[in-house]
């Protein structure tokens, strides 16, 4: 096994670059090293000006999403040895404006996030219970998969529709809305309906399915969106057939 591998990193420093450029670094190739370890090696030993986000190194924080050899990946979960003989292409996540090097701008998602009310909406008519809310394992299984989302934005980078329609709420956000809709303790489904069943909600999705393929946590946003389309379509039919009823 050769003991080094080349990494082609996209550089963009707005204070001096007009456009992104690619810079090659030769780094040691070790069996247990991920792309993030390689970038940390560059930052510590070779070029301290390289910028990228990272924190936990173990696929929990969702900070180190980047495009590795063309696919949206967490750098901490992508091993250099799987990309032999190299060079490994490391670019910022697609579909987002770049702030610097591999750091992307997430304001669009952060602004959309509260619109889906990703928290437990309680029934305000009822007094809060004296004890904790109880839930059976079956009730938890309903939403547990969707609660694994770490907001790493890989699904947004993978989604071709998000690249074309900036208003689209996007995969993670709709999966998050479903995570709360399917929770037996939540009463907010009606409040989320207006946002999620809007044209820029589920109806922008054309079921490409790349979001579910990209997800590093096994969440199935594409499935969540298709399930929600059924709910939203039923509501539409009800409002068309029974216009005098509830909405």
């Amino acid at each position: 096994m050769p003991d080094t591998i080349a990494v082609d990193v996209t550089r963009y420093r707005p204070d001096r670059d007009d456009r992104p450029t690619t810079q090659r670094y030769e780094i040691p190739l070790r069996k247990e090293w991920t792309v993030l370890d390689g970038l940390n090696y560059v930052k510590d030993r070779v070029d301290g000006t390289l910028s990228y986000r990272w924190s936990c190194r173990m696929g929990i924080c969702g900070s180190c999403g980047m495009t590795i050899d063309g696919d949206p990946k967490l750098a901490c979960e992508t091993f250099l040895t799987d990309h032999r003989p190299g060079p490994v292409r490391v670019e910022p996540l697609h579909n987002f404006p770049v702030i610097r090097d591999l750091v992307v701008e997430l304001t669009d998602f952060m602004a959309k996030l509260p619109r889906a009310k990703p928290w437990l909406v309680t029934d305000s008519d009822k007094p809060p219970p004296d004890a904790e809310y109880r839930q059976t394992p079956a009730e938890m299984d309903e939403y547990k998969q969707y609660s694994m989302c770490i907001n790493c934005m890989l699904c947004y980078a993978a989604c071709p529709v998000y690249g074309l329609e900036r208003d689209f709420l996007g995969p993670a956000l709709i999966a998050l809305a479903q995570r709360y809709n399917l929770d037996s303790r939540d009463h907010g489904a009606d409040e989320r309906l207006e946002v999620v069943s809007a044209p820029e909600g589920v109806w922008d999705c054309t079921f490409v399915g790349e979001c579910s393929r990209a997800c590093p946590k096994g969440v199935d946003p594409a499935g969540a969106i298709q399930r929600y389309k059924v709910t939203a379509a039923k509501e539409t039919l009800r409002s068309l057939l029974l216009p005098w009823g509830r909405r």
Partner: protein
Amino acid sequence: MTTRRPVEPVLWLAFSAGGMLSALLVPVLLLLFGLAFPLGLLPAPDHAHLHALVRSPVTRLVLLALTVLALFHAAHRLRYTVRDGLQLKRLERLVDALCYGGAVAGSALAAYLLATIS
């Protein structure tokens, strides 16, 4: 709210139903009438038998539903493939009109053919 563009959910329902129905019925019909009967793998029903079958209102209704929904399924798919795949968002209205217009025309033709079987 959903009433702002209520046509999209309805088109999606037709798309879903068309996909489901086509996936279930079209392979069976193709296998029977495209392979098994012409190749003699199964004894082919005679013309009088099939004619009587197609004259039944139930068969006509099933064939009409299959054709119409399959056409709307195809129209929906083609619309997104052309609009997003070929990046023709500026021609969105034209693409919609051609895709769904084609499905409507095909449906009308199917209805006419099925209604005029004597």
